[in-house]
């Protein structure tokens, strides 16, 4: 496993605590994210993640026909595609409309169909599991507007009739309560009223049907509700369309008929799995033969907002299949991107130099990057600057007091013996990002070769000068990338992963006169009138990989 580095989003911790949880705790993974999934709010000057942003739907589309559904018709179509898109009730792949075989021409070969679309009846066919809708008696006269052709079956289904009836029943109350809440404008919680009268009715029904369930009375809790007690009493009792006992006739009783069906069953596939029945709103029969094709649920495009200042971080283009964004404030454009590598890992891969293109993470070197307890290893951190200004970066390892505390007290003391990480203590520069480097891959990779040579020479020079390869400090600078070396010393009894929190702070020259002014921190700070230095600090977690216990000699040449 290659070493990883993840970035910290402070949304999980409280207001006062801005330090991340200790990395060895399983819960800490919720606070760390890969850089590419993070956002950056310019107003708050803070990192935001998918857990904390507020999400708004900006458009709906069908993932199969890619039709953009106007939001007005989404509810009427019950959030599913109302055109020709169905998914297989057995395997959930997309169904295809196929025509029947053309009539036999008499010479043993099917005659060529003259019509454009094929012979009716048409049916839905699954290309994956070969299910077809003719099996369950669904065929179509024409191959278009299938959902409309099935509409009458869907509308006459008992569950949708019941739902319509429920809506009808509650509608007058919703209307009157919303009207009355409009007239009682001063009440702060007026928007809760429609729901509270509905829940009152529901809880009344629940209390009646299930003995021993106390009435949940939300009205008693709010003064506004008490004013409206009269409204609650006005609500007549809801009578379901169908008595519970009648459900048995639908083949869903769960007793006699099911047992009978099970008795006659020959294979387990005849019973629909829980997943296949999960989406049904009504109990249906257990047999797979009763499953119906499903209209494909719609997908949505979303825009995202900063949770604290409500500024938009992500705003997609209207077109459903466009991958462009009108607004896209991602952290990768603000924070330096960091990658971490273990040189002893990559050297191992180099040594075996395969003639063919093979990714270095082939299964055989699964343990090549592992570290032995009681040894020290150098590691490399490459920082890439996305800003148009050079930055000064300072790295420091977060003190792991929690680990230390568990060491002294917990019985698993031996297992938690930590490791020591040394990083360059002084700050180092990372050059500015320039568009020109985007095109350096066009000039035949000479740059890369030179840099590699430079690195090798630099390291040999170090060796000559100090008699020792330099491991901690700046190792390489190229374009907007700086590689620094660090070293980890692993204790003799260490177990688990070499995983530590690292504080990264970088300073850049800001053009803004004052940091409090708005419009702070665009990545394009090219004009420097009053150069002011600003600092941004964030936490990361570095996972260098597992520690192997000393006894286990995996490879004789390690």
């Amino acid at each position: 496993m290659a070493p990883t580095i993840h970035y910290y989003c402070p949304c999980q911790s409280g207001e006062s605590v801005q330090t991340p949880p200790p990395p060895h705790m399983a819960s800490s993974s919720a606070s760390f994210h890969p850089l590419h999934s993070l956002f950056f709010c310019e107003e708050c000057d803070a990192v935001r993640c998918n857990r904390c942003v507020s999400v708004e739907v900006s458009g709906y589309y069908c993932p199969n026909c890619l039709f953009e559904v106007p939001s007005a018709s989404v509810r009427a179509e019950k959030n599913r595609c109302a055109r020709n898109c169905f998914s297989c009730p057995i395997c959930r792949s997309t169904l295809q409309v196929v025509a029947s075989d053309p009539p036999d021409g008499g010479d043993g070969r099917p005659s060529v169909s003259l019509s454009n679309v094929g012979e009716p009846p048409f049916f839905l066919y699954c290309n994956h599991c070969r299910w077809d809708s003719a099996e369950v008696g669904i065929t179509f006269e024409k191959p278009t507007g299938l959902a409309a052709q099935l509409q009458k079956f869907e509308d006459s289904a008992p569950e949708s009739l019941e739902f319509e009836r429920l809506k009808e029943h509650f509608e007058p109350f919703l209307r009157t309560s919303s009207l009355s809440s409009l007239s009682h404008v001063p009440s702060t919680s007026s928007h809760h009223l429609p729901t509270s009268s509905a829940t009152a009715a529901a809880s009344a029904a629940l209390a009646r049907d299930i003995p021993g369930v106390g009435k949940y009375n939300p009205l008693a809790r709010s003064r506004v509700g008490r004013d409206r007690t009269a409204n609650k009493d006005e609500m007549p009792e809801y009578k379901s369309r169908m008595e519970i006992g009648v459900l048995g006739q639908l083949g869903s009783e769960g007793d006699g008929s099911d047992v009978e069906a099970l008795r006659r069953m020959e294979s387990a596939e005849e019973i629909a799995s829980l997943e296949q029945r999960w989406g049904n709103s009504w109990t249906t029969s257990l047999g797979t033969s009763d499953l119906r094709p499903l209209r494909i649920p719609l997908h949505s495009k979303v825009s995202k907002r900063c949770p604290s200042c409500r500024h938009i971080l992500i705003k997609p283009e209207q077109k459903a299949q466009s991958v462009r964004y009108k607004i896209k404030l991602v952290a990768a454009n603000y924070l330096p991107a960091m990658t971490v590598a273990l040189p002893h890992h990559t050297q191992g891969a180099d040594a075996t130099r395969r003639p063919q293109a093979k990714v270095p993470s082939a299964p055989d070197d699964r343990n090549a990057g592992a570290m032995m307890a009681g040894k020290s290893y150098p590691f490399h951190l490459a920082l890439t600057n996305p800003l148009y200004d050079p930055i000064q970066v300072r790295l420091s390892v977060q003190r792991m007091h929690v680990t230390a505390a568990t060491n002294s007290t917990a019985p698993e003391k031996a297992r938690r013996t930590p490791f020591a990480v040394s990083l360059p203590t002084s700050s180092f520069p990372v050059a500015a990002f320039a568009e020109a480097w985007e095109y350096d891959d066009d000039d035949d990779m000479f740059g890369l070769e030179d840099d590699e040579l430079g690195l090798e020479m630099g390291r040999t020079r170090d060796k000559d000068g100090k008699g020792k390869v330099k491991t901690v400090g700046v190792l390489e600078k190229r374009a907007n990338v700086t590689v620094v070396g660090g070293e980890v010393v692993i204790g003799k009894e260490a177990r688990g992963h070499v995983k530590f929190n690292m504080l990264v702070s970088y300073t850049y020259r800001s053009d803004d006169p004052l940091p409090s002014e708005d419009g702070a921190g665009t990545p394009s700070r090219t004009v420097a009138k009053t150069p002011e230095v600003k600092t941004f600090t964030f936490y990361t977690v570095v996972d260098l990989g597992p520690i192997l216990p000393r006894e286990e000699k995996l490879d004789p040449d390690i």
Partner: protein
Amino acid sequence: MDVPVYYSKAEFIETDTGNKVSRRATIAGPQNIILGGKTIISSGAIIRGDLRRTGPGHAVVISLGRYCLVGEGCVMRPPYKTYRGNFNYYPMKIGDYVHVGANTVVEAATIGNHVVIGKNCVIGKFTIIKDCAQVADNTVIPPNTVIPALALFSGSPGRFIEDLPESTQEMVESQTKQYYSRFQPLER
């Protein structure tokens, strides 16, 4: 930091536009195949440019964009169907920055830009893959499937798993460019 991926110089042919094509790949009907430049065809890959549409004139069967990778042992085969009684092959169009993992069989009709397909996948006939979509390793996509933009598909049959992050385009672009620059010859 970028570990080079070495290949033997004798094995690969490099074109003027930077395409690197393995001599051990089977390229049938090369006159019907277009490579956009800086595209790598790995050893053991099979590209069936010979399965062209019947009829006179020149026909492009398979076109690949820039910075694509056809992995080892991949099969790229244009889709076919019988329409109004006539059997025919249909062209396959693949955009820029598309990586196809090892031993994957592709019979898609259209693959957009910035698409990553894992290894050991089967991409069924006439599949349409939109921009920035990804297919996980060992996925089977049934024929005629549509994979929307920025979606991750996985499983057998391949199903929608999640929406990919907004920065997928930049990530895939830099990864594919980086892979091309890491793909270096080794004299021996």
